[in-house]
């Protein structure tokens, strides 16, 4: 991630974007686009919809970036727009987020037959992320933002517009509920 190391660089790049520098905007897309897409795809399991919402998200950001001042909130802002757009689209289509299926951890990613350890890892991933699909929507969002988007709890709270304590409590309960769904989680480890 180009901007992970240098917050000041991100601020300077965003300022250039505000001044109309298209190359600076392209840097932003290259840095954050894949992460936004991955999060959206992990939630909706639809490549076209994920790209459509990602595109809509960046369109919204670029039209509102003129007055933006980077205070460490750009990433939560970006992901918040993406999550809200996805939620609205899912509601419009009358659908819920689709649990991560076998194809994510299966042969779609690689055409080769996986080895023993690798196959075990994929089976474990399928079981875990399949169970997450049975959690409440808000709990699923927290786990996806934490593990797929690698966001801190503080950032997750900003994305979901919830108090930090609420997010921590929901995450705590989500793990307990996930253990209940899995039945014997120790057998997975």
């Amino acid at each position, binding site marked *: 991630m180009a901007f992970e190391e240098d917050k000041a660089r991100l601020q300077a790049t965003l300022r250039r974007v505000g001044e109309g520098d298209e190359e600076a905007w392209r840097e932003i897309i290259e840095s954050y686009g894949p992460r936004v897409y991955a999060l959206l795809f992990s939630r909706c399991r639809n490549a076209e919809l994920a790209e459509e919402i990602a*595109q809509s998200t960046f369109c919204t950001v670029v039209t509102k970036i003129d007055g933006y001042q980077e205070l460490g909130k750009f*990433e939560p802002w970006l992901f918040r727009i993406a999550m809200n757009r996805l939620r609205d689209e899912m509601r419009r289509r009358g659908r819920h987020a689709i649990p991560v299926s076998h194809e994510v951890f299966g042969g779609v990613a690689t055409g080769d037959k996986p080895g023993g350890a690798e196959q075990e890892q994929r089976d474990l991933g399928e079981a875990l992320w399949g169970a997450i699909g049975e959690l409440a929507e808000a709990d699923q969002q927290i786990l996806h933002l934490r593990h797929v988007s690698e966001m801190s709890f503080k950032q997750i709270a900003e994305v979901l517009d919830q108090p930090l304590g609420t997010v921590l409590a929901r995450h705590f309960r989500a793990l307990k509920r996930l253990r209940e769904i899995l039945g014997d989680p120790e057998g997975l480890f």
Partner: protein
Amino acid sequence: MNEDKHGTSRSGSGGHPHSQGIEPLGEGYDDLDRKLDARLSSTSHELRSTPVPAGFIDRVFEASIEARNEAEAPLSFTRGLPRRQPAALKLVALAACLGIAVTAALWLVRGQPTRNAPDPVVAIDIQAPGSSLATDSITLSSEAEWAMLASSRDHRQLERLSTLVVTRDMGFGDVTGDLASVIDAIHDPRLQTFDLEWQR
């Protein structure tokens, strides 16, 4: 769980504003929670590394640049003053209509009392039929005529006429009207109109 691999240097609830691995769990979680969390992190690698479709970056870039240009387009409308004229004309027309409506309302409000005003008072003769006040038809007794003559301011001058009153050859109105004027004229030297016949 290999916590060093997942960014143990990050603070409990804050951390770097950008992705530096998954934030370690704080206190309150048991070992099984931590193992489960670690498994979620290790298996989410394939989710995180979901490849974007070919040309994704270019399409997002082009679409967002177009969106930005469209968002800036309304600025050009500020040059379009003619577009504002119809709106101004509409406002003027609306103001004119309001003015007419107010004027009409005022006219109606002010005209109402005039319309509803009672017709000019018609004199009503409340006198009983036959009691006309026409002095010609008044017939007073000679005593009454005399009493009225005596109360007159010129009764001394009119005393000479009392016989006429008594004999009812003249009424009080005649005495105090035309004749009194004649007598006044006789006694007024400025008028020089004394009647010689009266002097006799």
